[in-house]
Protein backbone atom coordinates (compact mmCIF):
# COMPACT_ATOMS: atom_id res chain seq x y z
CA UNK A 1 0.00 0.00 0.00
CA UNK A 2 1.14 3.52 -0.87
CA UNK A 3 -0.03 6.64 0.96
CA UNK A 4 -0.60 9.55 -1.45
CA UNK A 5 -0.93 13.12 -0.10
CA UNK A 6 -2.08 16.30 -1.80
CA UNK A 7 -1.40 19.83 -0.56
CA UNK A 8 -2.62 23.40 -0.94
CA UNK A 9 -4.46 24.32 -4.17
CA UNK A 10 -4.12 20.77 -5.48
CA UNK A 11 -5.72 19.35 -2.33
CA UNK A 12 -8.60 21.80 -2.65
CA UNK A 13 -9.16 21.12 -6.35
CA UNK A 14 -9.17 17.36 -5.87
CA UNK A 15 -11.27 17.75 -2.74
CA UNK A 16 -9.20 15.18 -0.84
CA UNK A 17 -5.97 15.39 1.16
CA UNK A 18 -4.98 11.75 1.24
CA UNK A 19 -5.68 8.51 -0.60
CA UNK A 20 -4.38 5.03 0.09
CA UNK A 21 -3.46 3.17 -3.02
CA UNK A 22 -2.85 -0.50 -3.53
CA UNK A 23 -0.56 -1.20 -6.45
CA UNK A 24 2.22 -3.57 -7.48
CA UNK A 25 5.58 -2.20 -6.36
CA UNK A 26 8.21 -1.09 -7.06
CA UNK A 27 6.97 1.39 -9.60
CA UNK A 28 7.91 4.89 -10.66
CA UNK A 29 6.04 8.02 -9.56
CA UNK A 30 4.98 8.37 -13.18
CA UNK A 31 3.41 4.90 -13.16
CA UNK A 32 1.73 5.64 -9.83
CA UNK A 33 0.27 8.79 -11.32
CA UNK A 34 -1.05 6.83 -14.32
CA UNK A 35 -2.69 4.34 -11.96
CA UNK A 36 -4.27 7.14 -9.90
CA UNK A 37 -5.62 8.82 -13.06
CA UNK A 38 -7.03 5.50 -14.27
CA UNK A 39 -9.02 5.28 -11.05
CA UNK A 40 -9.87 9.06 -10.95
CA UNK A 41 -10.08 10.21 -14.58
CA UNK A 42 -11.33 13.66 -13.49
CA UNK A 43 -7.95 14.33 -11.81
CA UNK A 44 -5.91 14.03 -14.99
CA UNK A 45 -5.48 17.72 -15.77
CA UNK A 46 -4.56 18.51 -12.15
CA UNK A 47 -2.07 15.66 -11.74
CA UNK A 48 -0.29 16.28 -15.05
CA UNK A 49 0.35 19.98 -14.50
CA UNK A 50 3.91 20.79 -15.45
CA UNK A 51 4.83 22.71 -12.31
CA UNK A 52 3.59 20.06 -9.84
CA UNK A 53 6.22 18.97 -7.31
CA UNK A 54 6.74 15.49 -5.90
CA UNK A 55 8.02 14.19 -2.59
CA UNK A 56 8.68 10.58 -1.67
CA UNK A 57 8.92 9.84 2.05
CA UNK A 58 9.06 13.58 2.75
CA UNK A 59 12.09 14.17 0.51
CA UNK A 60 11.82 16.13 -2.73
CA UNK A 61 11.80 13.62 -5.61
CA UNK A 62 11.24 13.25 -9.34
CA UNK A 63 8.70 11.71 -11.63
CA UNK A 64 11.18 8.85 -12.25
CA UNK A 65 11.73 8.06 -8.56
CA UNK A 66 10.99 4.46 -7.56
CA UNK A 67 8.32 3.79 -4.94
CA UNK A 68 7.97 0.76 -2.69
CA UNK A 69 5.16 -0.55 -0.51
CA UNK A 70 4.75 1.57 2.60
CA UNK A 71 6.12 4.72 0.98
CA UNK A 72 4.46 8.09 1.33
CA UNK A 73 4.16 10.06 -1.92
CA UNK A 74 3.06 13.69 -2.02
CA UNK A 75 2.01 15.93 -4.90
CA UNK A 76 1.91 19.69 -4.44
CA UNK A 77 2.08 23.02 -6.31
CA UNK A 78 5.16 25.29 -6.24
CA UNK A 79 5.93 26.54 -2.75
CA UNK A 80 5.25 30.10 -1.61
CA UNK A 81 6.65 30.41 1.90
CA UNK A 82 8.39 33.29 3.70
Amino acid at each position, binding site marked *: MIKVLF*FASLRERLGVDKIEFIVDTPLSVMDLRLAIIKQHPAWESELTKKNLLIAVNKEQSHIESLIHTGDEVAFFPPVTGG
Partner: protein
Amino acid sequence: MNLSLSIQADDFNLQDEYQRLLESDNLSGAIVTFVGRVRDLSVDKKIAGLFLEYYPGMTEKALDNILQEAAKRFRINAARIIHRVGQLNGLDQIVFVGVTSVHREDAFAAAEFIMDYLKNQAPFWKKEITESGDSWVETKDKDKKLFERWGEK
Protein backbone atom coordinates in the same frame (compact mmCIF):
# COMPACT_ATOMS: atom_id res chain seq x y z
CA MET B 1 27.38 23.94 15.43
CA ASN B 2 24.05 25.12 16.78
CA LEU B 3 21.37 24.64 14.10
CA SER B 4 17.71 24.85 15.03
CA LEU B 5 14.32 25.43 13.50
CA SER B 6 10.75 25.95 14.53
CA ILE B 7 7.48 25.82 12.61
CA GLN B 8 4.92 27.50 14.78
CA ALA B 9 1.63 29.37 14.84
CA ASP B 10 2.89 31.76 17.53
CA ASP B 11 4.68 35.02 16.88
CA PHE B 12 8.37 35.37 17.75
CA ASN B 13 10.46 38.10 19.37
CA LEU B 14 13.64 39.21 17.58
CA GLN B 15 15.55 39.96 20.79
CA ASP B 16 14.74 36.55 22.28
CA GLU B 17 15.89 34.79 19.12
CA TYR B 18 19.07 36.87 18.98
CA GLN B 19 19.91 35.98 22.57
CA ARG B 20 19.16 32.31 21.97
CA LEU B 21 21.55 32.28 18.99
CA LEU B 22 24.34 33.70 21.14
CA GLU B 23 23.56 31.69 24.26
CA SER B 24 26.60 29.46 24.19
CA ASP B 25 28.48 31.25 21.43
CA ASN B 26 31.51 33.24 22.52
CA LEU B 27 33.16 32.99 19.14
CA SER B 28 30.89 35.01 16.89
CA GLY B 29 31.45 38.68 16.33
CA ALA B 30 28.93 38.91 13.48
CA ILE B 31 25.21 38.29 13.84
CA VAL B 32 22.85 38.73 10.87
CA THR B 33 19.09 38.43 11.21
CA PHE B 34 16.35 38.52 8.62
CA VAL B 35 12.67 39.05 9.43
CA GLY B 36 9.99 38.72 6.78
CA ARG B 37 6.61 40.33 7.31
CA VAL B 38 3.28 39.83 5.59
CA ARG B 39 2.67 42.85 3.39
CA ASP B 40 0.17 45.50 4.46
CA LEU B 41 -3.16 43.92 3.54
CA SER B 42 -5.21 47.00 4.44
CA VAL B 43 -4.39 48.62 1.10
CA ASP B 44 -6.35 45.86 -0.62
CA LYS B 45 -9.67 45.91 1.19
CA LYS B 46 -10.74 42.56 -0.23
CA ILE B 47 -8.03 40.56 1.56
CA ALA B 48 -8.96 39.67 5.11
CA GLY B 49 -5.82 37.67 5.92
CA LEU B 50 -3.44 34.92 4.96
CA PHE B 51 -3.38 31.25 5.71
CA LEU B 52 -0.10 29.30 5.66
CA GLU B 53 -0.23 25.56 5.03
CA TYR B 54 2.74 23.20 5.39
CA TYR B 55 3.60 19.51 5.11
CA PRO B 56 4.26 18.26 8.66
CA GLY B 57 7.41 16.17 8.72
CA MET B 58 8.62 17.17 5.29
CA THR B 59 8.77 20.89 5.96
CA GLU B 60 10.95 20.34 9.04
CA LYS B 61 13.20 18.06 6.98
CA ALA B 62 13.49 20.66 4.24
CA LEU B 63 14.41 23.41 6.70
CA ASP B 64 16.95 21.14 8.36
CA ASN B 65 18.47 20.33 4.95
CA ILE B 66 18.78 24.05 4.24
CA LEU B 67 20.54 24.62 7.58
CA GLN B 68 22.92 21.69 6.98
CA GLU B 69 23.70 22.96 3.50
CA ALA B 70 24.36 26.49 4.82
CA ALA B 71 26.69 25.04 7.48
CA LYS B 72 28.59 23.18 4.76
CA ARG B 73 28.95 26.19 2.48
CA PHE B 74 29.74 28.94 4.98
CA ARG B 75 31.85 29.38 8.10
CA ILE B 76 29.07 29.83 10.64
CA ASN B 77 28.62 28.97 14.32
CA ALA B 78 24.85 29.01 14.71
CA ALA B 79 21.77 29.35 12.52
CA ARG B 80 18.08 29.29 13.24
CA ILE B 81 14.92 29.39 11.13
CA ILE B 82 11.43 30.15 12.40
CA HIS B 83 8.49 29.93 10.01
CA ARG B 84 4.96 30.68 11.10
CA VAL B 85 1.96 28.74 9.83
CA GLY B 86 -1.82 29.09 10.11
CA GLN B 87 -3.76 32.32 10.09
CA LEU B 88 -1.73 35.54 9.64
CA ASN B 89 -2.67 39.18 9.24
CA GLY B 90 -1.13 42.10 7.40
CA LEU B 91 2.29 43.18 8.73
CA ASP B 92 2.55 40.07 10.92
CA GLN B 93 6.03 38.58 11.21
CA ILE B 94 6.10 35.39 9.16
CA VAL B 95 9.71 34.21 8.94
CA PHE B 96 12.94 34.64 10.93
CA VAL B 97 16.46 33.65 9.96
CA GLY B 98 19.43 34.29 12.24
CA VAL B 99 23.08 33.41 11.66
CA THR B 100 26.21 33.92 13.75
CA SER B 101 29.78 33.78 12.53
CA VAL B 102 33.28 35.02 13.18
CA HIS B 103 33.19 36.50 9.68
CA ARG B 104 30.57 39.03 8.67
CA GLU B 105 30.63 38.04 4.98
CA ASP B 106 29.74 34.45 5.93
CA ALA B 107 26.96 35.58 8.26
CA PHE B 108 25.41 37.70 5.49
CA ALA B 109 25.84 35.08 2.78
CA ALA B 110 24.46 32.24 4.90
CA ALA B 111 21.36 34.23 5.94
CA GLU B 112 20.64 35.21 2.35
CA PHE B 113 21.29 31.67 1.11
CA ILE B 114 18.88 30.25 3.69
CA MET B 115 16.14 32.69 2.66
CA ASP B 116 16.59 32.03 -1.07
CA TYR B 117 16.50 28.26 -0.54
CA LEU B 118 13.60 28.46 1.88
CA LYS B 119 11.52 30.45 -0.61
CA ASN B 120 12.11 27.78 -3.26
CA GLN B 121 12.55 24.51 -1.42
CA ALA B 122 10.47 24.55 1.74
CA PRO B 123 6.92 23.23 1.47
CA PHE B 124 4.85 26.20 2.59
CA TRP B 125 1.82 27.46 0.70
CA LYS B 126 0.21 30.83 1.16
CA LYS B 127 -3.49 31.45 0.65
CA GLU B 128 -5.18 34.84 0.59
CA ILE B 129 -8.51 34.89 2.35
CA THR B 130 -11.04 37.21 0.70
CA GLU B 131 -14.76 37.82 1.03
CA SER B 132 -15.37 36.29 -2.37
CA GLY B 133 -13.33 33.16 -1.60
CA ASP B 134 -9.75 32.13 -1.04
CA SER B 135 -6.96 32.25 -3.58
CA TRP B 136 -3.57 30.56 -3.49
CA VAL B 137 -0.51 32.73 -3.96
CA GLU B 138 1.58 31.89 -7.04
CA THR B 139 5.37 31.51 -6.96
CA LYS B 140 7.42 34.47 -8.04
CA ASP B 141 9.97 33.94 -10.78
CA LYS B 142 12.17 36.42 -8.94
CA ASP B 143 12.61 34.00 -6.05
CA LYS B 144 13.61 31.27 -8.49
CA LYS B 145 16.29 33.54 -9.93
CA LEU B 146 17.61 34.45 -6.47
CA PHE B 147 17.72 30.75 -5.66
CA GLU B 148 19.56 29.77 -8.81
CA ARG B 149 22.48 32.13 -8.18
CA TRP B 150 23.79 29.77 -5.49
CA GLY B 151 24.28 26.92 -7.97
CA GLU B 152 24.69 23.26 -7.15
CA LYS B 153 27.35 22.03 -4.79
